């Protein structure tokens, strides 16, 4: 085996692995990117039933209902509101009036079925996506009120 040919083998092996990796990356990006949407975004551009995404906003005051380990509440950005159902134990810092990010999908009745409600580590922490989308909605508010 000549030097050149040996080198070629290694280059080919490397290319093959990189190629496989690139293919894996591209295919899995297609179905594992999870988009973030606020209730207002959803009113503007609905998301198909069954498609996984993250919903963020505030837990609406007085909206939390509990039946055993099944929770129902509404997520709002103070403009639009989305009903959510979650089965499980809610994270420690889940509160009415506080920011929340839930991952899941819509069922055919327009209820968001959360598979996961994200925990926060800190009471003062507002998920940045939520803060941003709420700010958009919030700055829009005063005009709506006047």
């Amino acid at each position, binding site marked *: 085996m000549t030097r050149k040919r040996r080198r070629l083998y290694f280059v080919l092996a490397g290319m093959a692995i990189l190629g496989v990796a690139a293919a894996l990356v591209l295919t899995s990006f297609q179905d*594992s990117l999870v988009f973030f949407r606020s209730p207002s975004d959803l009113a503007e551009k609905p998301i198909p039933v069954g498609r996984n995404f993250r919903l963020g906003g505030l837990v609406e005051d007085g909206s939390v209902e509990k039946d055993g380990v099944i929770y129902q509440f509404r997520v709002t950005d103070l403009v639009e509101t989305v009903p959510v159902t979650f089965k499980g134990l809610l994270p420690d810092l889940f509160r009415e009036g506080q920011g929340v990010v839930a991952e899941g999908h819509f069922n055919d009745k327009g209820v968001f079925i959360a598979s996961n409600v994200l925990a926060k580590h800190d009471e003062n922490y507002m998920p940045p996506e939520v803060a941003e989308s709420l700010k958009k909605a919030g700055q829009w508010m005063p005009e709506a009120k006047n």
Partner: protein
Amino acid sequence: MVAEIGQFVLILALVTACFQGVLPLIGAARGNAPLMHFADNAAFVQFVAISGAFACLTIGYVTSDFSILNVASNSHSLKPMLYKVSGVWGNHEGSLLLWGWILALFGFAVALFGRNLPDSLKARVLAIQGLIGVGFLMFVLFTSNPFERLDPAPLDGSGLNPLLQDPGLAFHPPFLYLGYVGLSVTFSFAIAALIEGRVDPAWARWVRPWTLAAWGFLTIGIALGSWWAYYELGWGGWWFWDPVENASFMPWLAATALLHSAIVVEKRDALKNWTILLAIIAFSFSLLGTFLVRSGVLTSVHAFASDPARGVFILIFLIVVIGGSLLLYGIRAPMMKGGGLFAPISREGALVLNNLLLSTAAATVLLGTLYPIFLDAFTGAKVSVGPPYFVSTFLPLVVPLIIAMAFGPFLPWKRGDLTGVLTRLKFALAAALLFAGVVWWWQSNAPVMALVGMGLFAWLLVGTILEWAERIKLFRGPLTSSWKRLVQLPRSSHGMTMAHIGIALVVLGITASEAWQTEHLGVMKPGEQISVGGYDFQFEGAENVAGPNYEALRGTFIASTGGGKGILMYPEQRRYTNPPMETTEAAIRPMLTADLYVVIGDADGKGGYATRIYHKPFISWIWIGAFVMFAGGALSLSDRRLRLGAPKRARSPGAKEKALTGAKG
């Protein structure tokens, strides 16, 4: 007073680091011995100074001196002593001080243990360490000063996030930082080699212990972090592919690759440029990790301090360090010819495969971690890249890696014989098939990946043990001669065997716990009993109890298998007062065959409590495996050859290497 002393010694350390970063480089270029030796002293002074600063901050915490802003915002007089001490590095400023202290510690260690290094190389390595120190100390002093005063001092501090008040997390950052920062030494060696324009087997041998140490600490650090997530976050997961976790995982992947490629440099004098590049990349990942965590560019469940101003500083620092070193690499590396090519089927061929797979895996993790930033920057869309992405890209790369892991050690250097290896591995193959078969027979509805995982576990475990048995010629002669070989073989080779077995155990733990976990979620009333994973869980009731700085709702469960005595379990839901916060304390019973995991939630108002019970088979083996890997690294590090007898560099280097100007013989 203590704060002012701390501030002063920190400035002293910065000044020392400036000199350490410049003078030895000049000395090495001019062949001036006193200037080169200055590096040793400077490294010592810098270490003592930062130790002093660290001690000052610790005193501030232990004595609850709330006139120091950092102490007031992160500590509280009622906090248990352990967490007062761990509180020192449980916050942004303190953790950076810890970073700087470990950096100085490693610099000092190089000065201390590097007696057999050539003067010029040692001077350059220490100078690079000094320059990194300059950057970090400036960062600490100008953007994150831990000694800032608070006037007037509050009566009490605002406390440490209760989630961080935990023994696992108390020791997680120090280990992780020992790993991150340990890679700085390898980095400095790589830069020094680029400046000198030579890399040879002796260089690889000098670098190896540092890489090994950093790798071992990273392994333990990551394991502690995932263990903390497992029992403290209360949702039973142990790895979330969260940006912060990835930030520690990428340097680990790079360090693992580096560890293996350095062997090729050492034994075969090949793969030099690649090894240098890996050393730079590994440390770059460490810095990138710091950037991602500290700047708030990526949001994460772990982020506990973030600030764009600091982000700017870190990013400039990153550009200077990583960009500068990669540029130096681009200029100098083409001049470093060396080493031959080799046959694809050989030990070095297998190590190249290992490197290709590991670095590709690191690249896919990097891409998945940074992609949300890219998309946000270009389109403004907010996305998160979920675990499915990492699982579906990472696993296909890891499976061939594990298959090759059993192969590689069998192959001789230079030229191997695949069929010969295959015949010797036939037991491992048989074991893998048999084991997967037994599992399938026992759990016929098991997912395919579970069978693959169990097969890989058996393959790697048996293959590794076979190779070890062959090395000591077990059963090929009298046991006494095998024993002799066992003792005489270098410890580093036993270390390798151990580390590979550790990986096999991790594979077992991950596969079994993912595939056969059972869980129950529901409301339980006192006296109710539920069966999960072959255990009967009896809920006895719940009561309110008081802890040192919290109140808790504590449930009592008895888990039993029908026969023997029951296992008492007490999950809690705690309410801390300073700062006010609730945490879930899962009750976990770790056993070799499975973990029992019980969480108690809110009362439903009708006498019942929301509960979640998991049965997680073999999950402990993930951490046992990680510890075995660490122990393998430690065993290898204790090898005599690495510690003392590091050989003198060959007097007359190869003609090719001499071609480079400035190469010193």
